[in-house]
């Protein structure tokens, strides 16, 4: 039993790392613009499908698909931004509905281009076992956990040290004051969407490498990302990692100890629990709830 639980914890942590990659882009845009990009999951999925095309068409490792995927996904992300920035009133609600519509469009585009088959990497290396003592995992899982941590570190550094990064933080905490300081909020928001696109690209390639993709998966990803963003609390990057790890471990433990049918339930339950008990998330800044 202990072995089972330990392995579950390990698997859960690795899975959480990948979840964090998926959630980061959504969390960043949410923090900057207070906009929930419901098409984010589709952006991740788009990157995954490009990785598939590169692997099956050229025979390359999915990692080499990253530059092309980044180009496509970031352009799409920018288009989402342009649409969202056009909204005049009731931005919170209207952006929800707008990005929802964009998500539907993207899902159907993916279906039209790549058809409905399921896909995943056929690379041997990605699927080979990586054994660490009593712990088992796939190479791809370890790899992308590492990538996730690195990217998160990079993002955190960028937000703290670079000019654009600090501008993003300034705009998210007080838009008008930031304007006064000479920051152009619109270009900052654009930057945050581009960065979200970069994060989505890595998340998508990771997804293709360790999991199975199909056109309808975009919505599932968006929901996971949102659950983690709420768990984390707005404006907290390390919170996203912790929230994602928490979700991954909770899911793995539920599957191991109880029934796998409850895996989804755990995510939803955790989500609601945090909303009731700690609406600011684990690490969020204090905000009015009412």
């Amino acid at each position, binding site marked *: 039993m202990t072995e089972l639980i330990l392995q579950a914890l390990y698997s859960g942590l690795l899975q959480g790392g990948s979840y964090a990659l998926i959630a980061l882009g959504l969390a960043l845009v949410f923090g900057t613009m207070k906009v929930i990009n419901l098409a984010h999951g589709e952006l991740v999925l788009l990157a995954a499908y490009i990785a598939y095309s590169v692997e099956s068409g050229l025979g390359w490792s999915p990692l080499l698909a990253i530059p092309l995927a980044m180009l496509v996904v970031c352009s799409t992300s920018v288009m989402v931004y342009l649409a969202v920035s056009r909204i005049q009133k009731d931005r919170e609600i209207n952006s*929800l*509905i707008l990005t929802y519509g964009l998500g539907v469009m993207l899902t*159907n*585009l993916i279906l039209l281009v790549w058809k409905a088959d399921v896909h995943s990497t056929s690379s041997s290396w990605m699927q080979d076992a990586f054994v660490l003592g009593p712990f088992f995992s796939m190479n791809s899982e370890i790899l992308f956990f590492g990538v996730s941590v690195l990217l998160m570190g990079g993002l955190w550094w960028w937000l703290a040290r670079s000019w654009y990064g600090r501008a993003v933080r300034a705009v998210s905490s007080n838009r008008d004051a930031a304007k006064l300081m000479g920051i152009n909020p619109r270009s900052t928001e654009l930057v945050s969407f581009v960065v979200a696109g970069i994060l989505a690209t890595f998340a998508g390639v990771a997804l293709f490498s360790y999991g199975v993709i199909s056109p309808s998966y975009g919505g599932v990803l968006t929901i996971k990302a949102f659950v983690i963003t709420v768990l984390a609390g707005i404006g907290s990057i390390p919170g996203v990692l912790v929230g994602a790890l928490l979700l991954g471990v909770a899911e793995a433990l539920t599957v191991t100890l109880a029934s796998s049918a409850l895996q989804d339930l755990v995510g939803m339950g955790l989500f609601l629990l945090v909303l009731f008990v700690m609406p600011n998330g684990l690490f969020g800044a204090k905000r009015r709830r009412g």
Partner: protein
Amino acid sequence: MKRNTQVLLALLASYALVPLLFGSNHYIMSMVVAALVIGGVALSWALLGNLGGMVSFGHSAFFGVGAYTSAIVSMKLGLPVPLSMLLGGLGAVVASAAMLPVLRLRGPYFALAILAYAHIFRILATEWKPVTGGAAGISNIPRLPELLGFDFGSKTGNYWVILSLVVVLAFAYQRIRKSHYGLALRAMHESEDATRVVGVNSTLLKALMLVVSAFMCGLVGAFNAHYINFLEPDYAFSSVWVTLPIVAAIFGGYRTLTGPVIGAVAVYLVDQLVFKAIMPSGHQLVLGLLLVAMVLLSPDGLLSIARNMTGRRHAAA
């Protein structure tokens, strides 16, 4: 007076003309009934949004709970279908009671928390095998009965029932809006703090609206169960019952009374009859595009464009 005449004419056309013209064309009638089901959900969604001020992404929860409750009650307890449908609505109300703690949350949090509930109910329906039949679902759900010599289970009968349902719901919506509850709710939107100061219990009002919206949606879900005669968790709680009503309501204008229903009929029929014929496998893309276009160009919906074009001004809901 002119408005009332218009309404009466529209109702007459709907009740009498439609079955007369299309009654024998089962295909068109199927489309219309399905569109009205969406319209009913859209109406309940818009009510929650307008009067309750809460946007929900999880109305499929009420739809599914209403459907299952009605199906189970009519099959396991043998109750007559109309009564089962009412109980279906009440079942959805009970479900909404579980959601009351979520009322305190703001905008997007509430919207997605309701979605979480929808997922949870779907999983419940899949796992609670002895009652709900699990993933297999429930088949051979009884149809609407014969009353006064007319078979309401027929296509036209079903049509009249759902039409009446939607009309009654719209009427109820109208009454609530005009009542002093409606006034209080509108004031609440302007400033929740101010209304609280005056003594309006905003949380209670919001809860009431959630309950009403749930009841309406549950009724429509129950009808659908007895119309399709088959139910399973993925269908009852499908995201279709979330997306299409929202598209319909936005398209038709969610601030108005008739907007959601007209939007539903327009969107559904145009999608199935026109887009599907032109693009058999990509037409859902057009729906997404429609939604995007609507939000960007006319967030108040199609009807407001129509009204602006005819030069009439209508007081905001």
